[in-house]
């Protein structure tokens, strides 16, 4: 990394979207994003990709599995 402001913004990307930045880092990212289309575009893109991955990866429970789990109720600790 060259250590420029866009590199720094890239370092903050994941924690920014996870909302785990400190107040100071958050302000730093927001200040840079307000004036940098290049990074702002990449932040929005990352957010879209994350949502899409989540939506695509979710697979609902197959029919019939709940009945099998229900049959397990009352299992004895020694069984």
């Amino acid at each position, binding site marked *: 990394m060259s250590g420029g402001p866009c590199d720094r913004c890239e370092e903050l990307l*994941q924690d920014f979207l996870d909302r785990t930045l400190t107040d100071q880092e958050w302000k730093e990212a927001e200040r840079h994003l307000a004036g940098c289309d290049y990074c702002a575009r990449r932040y929005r893109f990352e957010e879209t990709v994350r949502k899409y991955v989540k939506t695509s*990866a979710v697979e609902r429970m197959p029919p019939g599995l709940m009945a099998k789990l229900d049959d*397990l109720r009352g*299992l004895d600790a020694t069984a």
Partner: protein
Amino acid sequence: MSEPEPATEARRIAAEQRDRARFEEEALALADQVYRVARRLVGSREEAEDLVQETYARAFRSWRSFTPGTNMRAWLLRILTNLNVDRGRRIQRTPQTQPLEETDYYLANKVASAAGEEALETDEVVGRLSQDSVVRALSEIPPQFRDVVVLVDIGDFTYADAAQILDVPIGTVMSRLHRGRRALKQHLAEEALA
């Protein structure tokens, strides 16, 4: 010490049965969420079903070890991930290697150089990625990184919950998550630009 009165003993047993039934109801209400995580940790639907059934069998047997009022979803996933690791069933399509250290803009930069900066503002990339290609990309992440990505990004667990489930420090969760997401983006780039 004298034997408990039969009526007292009957009340104790009835109370325990009620607690147990409540525990089982609460656990079953989480089954769909447990399955969603299981499905992305193993390679097939059948394996995911088996893993969830084994998880519930163990949970129902050891229901007394659950502390009421704590996070049952995390407790169930802890059982599930332990069973999964114990049985060596985690998807192992790729050798146990560390992901390459690409940067966080990797996918965006790849897309921008292939299709132009404006492609980042449209659904073009999402349109190039089928559901199957996302699933395939997830399965290509080395297991120790994928577990964290699946728990946090698919299962919506907090860093702290993921740390508790996997029995690792929270810093390890954060570092595996960052690296797992970068690995995911490398594979998504391969899928999107193939």
